[in-house]
């Protein structure tokens, strides 16, 4: 990468080291240590400890028999420990390796996310962070998904991650990402920058499962640029306790008929704080979006945001935030926002927050289910988002993750 780009990014990052983020509680980065950013190594992932593998498996990352995965990437704290791709036309490596390999790499570095967005993006830049580089070549289609795991391992650590995802023209890329930790009640902080570039006619499905712990802070920073007829299908599931989680990925539908869909499923147990949204900028003629969020609090605090902005003709967007309050404490704050900057656009939203309708519980009870069974059936239904266009295997993984987490809920 040309030195000049490099140094201007560094300058901007230095200027932003103390810049508070627009959203989310401010986290003092000085309270954490920064584990070494070592060079990537390629180890056999099946030799990770049984405990670690089990944690990873719960987020959809299969290491013992990855026959249904076309590639794997694992980073523990700040060091990539495994990268592999099993299919022609598919590249999986550490970003540090891609940086050396491709002279065009700079075209994709801090182009979908601003390096000086806040102190978290700045921290990622200033620590020469690693992460995954996943790319499908023009026309290539992943048959099975590629899996990536970002694993926070060291007590009190900041994990810095910077990922680049490129789907070249006409390609199809399915990714399942699991983010989790070996920590229990110890503190840790995950900062993950992800930049997506979806070229003409390419399709990306990105399914991310977050299983954190009660004292962990999480600050992902994601930007997605979509060209003509490109498609992003983003699924996000966070159902485990987490100290403080804030993310608000932005998709820029710059191309004609570009499409971005976001589905989120959030469950906040007591003590958890989640501020999760999706932003879509409909900049290309005829571009489309749908944002669907299903949120449940069993005692935690949730802010569920959605923002869509129409900047071109014939764009269409729909936003749906539905929240369920189970139990006596906890809160859900739904903030749907629409902005139209010209005529001839079609943006709409619906939002609802409340308890389970007693009428529905009684309906199920009249069929012989007891109150708890009726409630859990209704909750399972509530979380059962039908995701159009998700391959059956990924849909199964998603349903399984939701099901596993439900068991903790009741």
């Amino acid at each position: 990468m040309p030195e000049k780009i490099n140094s201007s990014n560094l300058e901007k990052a230095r200027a932003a080291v103390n810049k508070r983020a627009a959203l989310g509680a401010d986290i003092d980065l000085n309270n954490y240590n920064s584990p070494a950013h070592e060079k990537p190594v390629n180890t056999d992932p099946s030799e990770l400890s049984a405990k670690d593998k089990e944690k990873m498996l719960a987020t959809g990352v299969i290491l013992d028999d990855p026959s249904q995965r076309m590639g794997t990437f694992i980073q523990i704290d700040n060091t990539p420990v495994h990268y592999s791709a099993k299919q022609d036309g598919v590249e999986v490596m550490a970003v540090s390796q891609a940086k050396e390999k491709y002279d065009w790499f700079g075209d994709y570095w801090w182009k979908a996310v601003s390096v000086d967005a806040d102190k978290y993006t700045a921290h990622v830049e200033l620590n020469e962070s690693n992460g995954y580089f996943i790319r499908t070549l023009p026309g290539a289609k992943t048959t099975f998904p590629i899996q990536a795991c970002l694993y926070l391992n060291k007590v009190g650590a900041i994990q810095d991650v910077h990922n680049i995802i490129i789907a070249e023209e006409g390609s199809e890329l399915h990714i399942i990402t699991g983010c989790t930790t070996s920590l229990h009640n110890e503190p840790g902080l995950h900062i993950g920058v992800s930049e997506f570039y979806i070229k003409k006619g390419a399709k990306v499905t990105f399914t991310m499962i977050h299983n954190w712990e009660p004292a962990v802070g999480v600050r992902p920073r994601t930007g997605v640029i979509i060209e003509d007829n490109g498609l992003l299908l983003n699924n996000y599931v966070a159902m485990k306790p987490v100290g403080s989680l804030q993310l608000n990925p932005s998709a820029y539908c710059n191309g004609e008929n570009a499409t971005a869909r976001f589905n989120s499923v959030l469950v906040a147990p007591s003590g958890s704080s989640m501020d999760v949204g999706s932003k879509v900028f409909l900049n290309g003629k005829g571009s489309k979006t749908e944002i669907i969020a299903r949120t449940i609090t069993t005692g935690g605090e949730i802010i569920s945001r959605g923002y869509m902005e129409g900047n071109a003709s014939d764009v269409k967007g729909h936003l749906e935030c539905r929240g369920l309050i189970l139990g006596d404490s906890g809160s859900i704050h739904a903030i749907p926002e629409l902005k139209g900057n010209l005529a001839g656009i079609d943006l709409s939203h619906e939002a609802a927050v409340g308890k389970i309708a007693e009428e529905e519980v009684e309906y199920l009870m009249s069929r012989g289910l007891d109150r708890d069974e009726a409630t859990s059936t209704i909750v399972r239904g509530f979380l059962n988002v039908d995701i159009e266009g998700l391959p059956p295997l990924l849909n199964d993984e998603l349903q399984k993750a939701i099901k596993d987490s439900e068991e903790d809920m009741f």
Partner: protein
Amino acid sequence: MDSEKADKEMLLDIKDLVVSVDNKEILHKVSLSIPYGETQVIFGPNGGGKTTLLMTIMGFPRYQVASGKIIFKGKDVTVMSVDERARLGIGIMFQRPPVVRGVKTRDMVAACLKKDNGEELIAELAGKANMTDFLSRDINHGFSGGEIKRSELLQLSAQSPNLVLLDEPESGVDLENISLIGSLINSLLGKVHPIRERTNSGLVITHTGHILNYINARTGYVMFEGKIICEGEPLDMLNTIKEKGYRECVKCLRK
């Protein structure tokens, strides 16, 4: 001793039932008995308390029993919860069931069936109710009037209650559907059923009496202003009501 013996022959025995909704007394000392294997019908003008009676028998908490008793299979169920009554063998067809988003018709039928690996049976029952295409849809979401009836009867056929409570099962159903619904009800009450051998009992509210063409009912009642004012042979009663209106029944009460 005699009355105890009588109790045992009755599937349902309601004695002097007084019921309030939102603290307003709606049913005033209603009594009726349904023997095992018998179906009875209730006629009466709107607002007479027919729906209230069925909802009270099912046990929905809004319907509060001030006094009187509901005996089912010889057990006092007056204070039992809805689900306990359902498991004991009472089932109801909802007039306006709620939509439960994400819960599929298949899930509801499976819940009614209360056994694992019921896939084949679910498919068979759904086929009979002409509901196969609805199994993977959210329950009641965008269902038409006739589809709701078929869905309710499908669920009941999986639940197979000993006492079937039907509230105007033919209302809002077009001619094409009425015979299907009639035969589904007949199989719920009658002997032809894939799950069980024994004949069930029913309590059916009807305005039009159309359903009488499909079920074999021996006893009819007229409910008026929260009371049962008349008892008789259902078809005779229907004819009288058709000719002379409910006023004739009121006279019957005065006599």
